[in-house]
């Protein structure tokens, strides 16, 4: 008994949506590979946009419209902008930066493959040969909202507590160096005052 026989839909006669899903998946995968292999830092961030956008397109093809737009809003609109902001604060050179390799290539590859294998295993084990009927939208906003706040409300709240902890941690970390920088600000202010007084003196003369 093969999987194809167990499922009412065969694997050998794909519909248009399925073909599109595979194609977009390939593009997403390729963009992700380029993201981690390119030598140009900012290009990596921009390829990440393609990869994350491709993922949003996959959600759309699965009729999970709400998740798709949130994906674009959070990842493309905020996370990548933050990444680019950080890159611009560094040199962010145009062209290749061969010194950007940390030498952890094999460790990173191992972790990535292990994580991917775990996720694929979990998804395959959870859904087996279930088939989603995509003719009627399955992931509308109201469905997603109802699922989230009826069945998954505890994990949802736990996640928000986690985020709150991260937020508080970030504030604590950023306040740590307050004392010395305060002095510097005071010095700068004193200098500015001196300069202003000097300028005023000059004007009076």
């Amino acid at each position, binding site marked *: 008994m093969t999987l194809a026989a167990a499922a009412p839909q065969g694997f050998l006669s794909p519909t248009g949506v399925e073909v599109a899903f595979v194609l977009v998946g390939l593009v997403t995968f390729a963009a992700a590979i380029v993201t981690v292999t390119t030598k140009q830092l*900012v*290009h990596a961030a*921009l390829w990440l*946009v393609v990869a994350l956008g491709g993922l949003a397109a996959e959600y759309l093809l699965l009729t999970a*419209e*709400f998740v798709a*737009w*949130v994906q*674009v*809003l959070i990842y*493309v*609109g*905020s996370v*990548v*902008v*933050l990444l*680019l*902001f950080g*890159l*611009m*604060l560094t040199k*962010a050179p*145009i*062209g290749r930066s061969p010194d950007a390799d940390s030498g952890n290539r094999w460790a990173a590859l191992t972790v990535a493959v292990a994580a991917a294998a775990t996720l694929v295993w979990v998804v395959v084990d959870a859904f087996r040969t279930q088939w989603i009927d995509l003719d009627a*939208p399955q992931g*509308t*906003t109201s469905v997603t909202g109802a699922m989230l706040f009826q069945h998954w409300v505890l994990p949802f709240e736990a996640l928000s507590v986690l985020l709150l902890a991260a937020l508080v941690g970030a504030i604590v970390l950023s306040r740590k160096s307050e004392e010395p920088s305060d002095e510097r600000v005071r010095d700068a202010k004193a200098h500015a005052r001196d300069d202003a007084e000097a300028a005023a003196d000059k004007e009076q003369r």
Partner: protein
Amino acid sequence: MNDALDVALRLLVVFAVFLVLPLVIGQTEHKVMAHMQGRLGPMYAGGFHGWAQLVADGVKFAQKEDVVPAGADRRIFQLAPAVALLPYLLVLVAIPIGPGEGAVGEVVDAGLFFVLAVMGVGVLGSLMAGWASANKFSLLGGLRTAAQLLAYELPMLLTAASVAMAAGTVSLPGIVEAFEWWWLPWQIVGALVFFVAGLAELQRPPFDMPVADSEIIFGAYTEYTGLRFALFLLAEYAGIVVLCGLTTVLFLGGWHGPWGADGLGWVWTLLKTAILAFLVIWLRVSYPRLREDQLQKLAWTTLVPLALAQIALTGIVKVAIQ
């Protein structure tokens, strides 16, 4: 077949609107600014009040040489204007101007999230332009753009969430459908925060620090010439159309008006949008540019708390009236 024709026709209309309205706003800006500042402005092209100046400007832009700096990252430099402009076209598809299926390009189930998400993508164009130009002024402009977006995205999302709570839906036609006149005082704080944050996201004066011409020439767009530069300018005006249209739909009741709601709803939408666009131009002439630290302070210490207060108020009233 009929469906395909229907979709094509809708997209064609949206595209026409996308081409016409930003130019109308650009021309209005020329004239309104000239009047407010007591100067004539260009008065000769085309005869009557220099109406054809916009056409002349367009021809001028098209004739100019398309220069890419030698040190620039060529492909990203050339791609950036499209990334800045196209999101506004996509957003326009989802904004309803009248009641019923016929008056919106495409009904999007999570329309509110769609428009906010796609508008956020447009800023990537400025960032790409700022980085790829290989110019320190451009890079500074890109940095300021990113900082501004990160600061103002939050209050914008929060106030949009407030409207969604009030209406009980995130579909844009659904929100206008649910609108009552007393939402105006109820959501007024949210409306102000949304509009101000939107202005900042478009980098319109008084929030035009990223393109401050007296400090960093023209920010991320310094190195652009000809048509690509014109595309960035067009993106700004398309952004005004989108922002005013969204504010109208979310906070001012869209096609609802004191009379003539049935046949003439779209007139109300356009009228409200036009008034808001006039306000945008008026603000440009009236207010000096905010300094970078004032910009950040306004967002984090004024707009975000106001938006949170609006959400709390919306929640309380919503529970009370149920």
